[in-house]
């Protein structure tokens, strides 16, 4: 057992390219899942049961089944009708998965904003919709930040699963290099290390964001 990190250095540009794709996916998924989660939460709380029931079912379904199964379903299911690139399926699949988790958080924080806020806002002349958007949602959003941060950290780690449906992120990028150099251990150690470094930075970022918004909570 001797280690040779030479091949990893040779193929490091490939890994960096994978890291780039992975980061792109992560940013897109973060945007989709936070905005989508907020929309789903607002609709499922404030709009009638006919609309909100399917949304709650969607949240429940995505939270009780594994991510990989959902990805396979989307990848093979959508592939039946239209040919869309794996990266798009990956963004949608991971986005929907975390959208459900984020919506669950937003539902809890929207409900935690006290009813007095709503009444006060209405009594000084805000309409129903304006109250939701200018008074309730901003407060709920800030309260959701710690848990959203946790979810986004989990999400970044889950981008590695997308290699299973062929998204060219970090793990997928290493597959070719591994099949040529036969050095799986060295490559996966380096990949794990890269994820660990990203994770540390995300945790620092989350702590900073929480400190910045703490006085508003």
């Amino acid at each position, binding site marked *: 057992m001797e280690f040779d990190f030479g091949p990893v250095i040779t193929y490091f540009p490939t890994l960096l390219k994978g890291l780039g794709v992975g980061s792109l996916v992560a940013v897109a998924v973060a945007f989709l899942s936070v905005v989508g989660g907020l929309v789903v939460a607002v609709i499922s709380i404030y709009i009638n049961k006919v609309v909100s029931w399917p949304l709650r079912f969607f949240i429940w379904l995505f939270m009780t089944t594994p991510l990989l199964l959902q990805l*396979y*379903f989307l990848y093979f*299911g959508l592939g039946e009708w239209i040919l869309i690139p794996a990266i798009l399926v990956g963004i949608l699949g991971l986005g929907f998965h975390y959208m459900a988790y984020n919506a669950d958080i937003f539902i809890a924080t929207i409900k935690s904003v006290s009813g007095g806020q709503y009444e006060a806002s209405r009594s000084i002349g805000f309409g129903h919709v304006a109250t939701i958007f200018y008074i309730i949602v901003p407060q709920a959003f800030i309260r959701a930040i710690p848990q959203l941060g946790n979810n986004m950290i989990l999400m970044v780690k889950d981008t590695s699963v997308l290699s299973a449906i062929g998204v060219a992120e970090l793990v997928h990028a290493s597959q070719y290099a591994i099949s040529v150099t036969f050095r799986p251990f060295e490559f996966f150690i380096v990949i794990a290390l890269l994820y660990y470094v990203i994770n540390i930075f995300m945790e620092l970022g989350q702590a900073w964001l929480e400190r910045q918004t703490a006085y508003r909570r």
Partner: protein
Amino acid sequence: MDFNLMVEVTPLLIEAAWVTIDVSARSMFFGFFVACGLVFLQSFRFAPIRWFARGYISVVRGTPYFVQLLLVFYGGPSIGVRLDPITCGVFVGAFNIGAYMSEAIRGSIESVDSGQTEAARSVGFGKVQTMVSIVLPQAAPLMIRSVGVLAIVLVKNSSLVSIISVVELTYQAQRLIGSTYKPLEIFTLSALMYIVIVYAVMGIIELAYRRATRYTTQ
């Protein structure tokens, strides 16, 4: 919906669901010991041992489970670790969930007011006795809830062992989708099985929680 197909593939999926249950249950069992070990190591007076445990937990929680699986399964042979897929899935699962579980256990033990420990010690209980008969019973309800959440995470994570060719529910579902071209039917069935497993786990947690709180007044 093609119901004939659904009836036809159900036995295959049930068989695969047992593998999912088997892998998750064994990971949970061994993971519990890993977690207790980590909690124990963190109580050492000798700092490097504590640092080792903290470092282990940080690294395991900071890297994807998926990459850990690939590292041990494909990278293991080059450091002399050769495991068959199921054993590899069970052990990586155990060592992964153990890190998360040790945090849950430590958190619930620390949530018990330190006055309880001091009171027990001052009336003559030993260290071990204080832990076993005073602190742990009070930590149990919170511990059951937080470890229970991890058990559900573990069941869902077990789908990832399909990537190292363990024929469990997700692997079987993917194979069946590939051979029948009926994603909706297969997805409905396999999702239903995951839901049944998850709800069974939730039921067990609820029973344990009621038992742990049977003497507490609300």
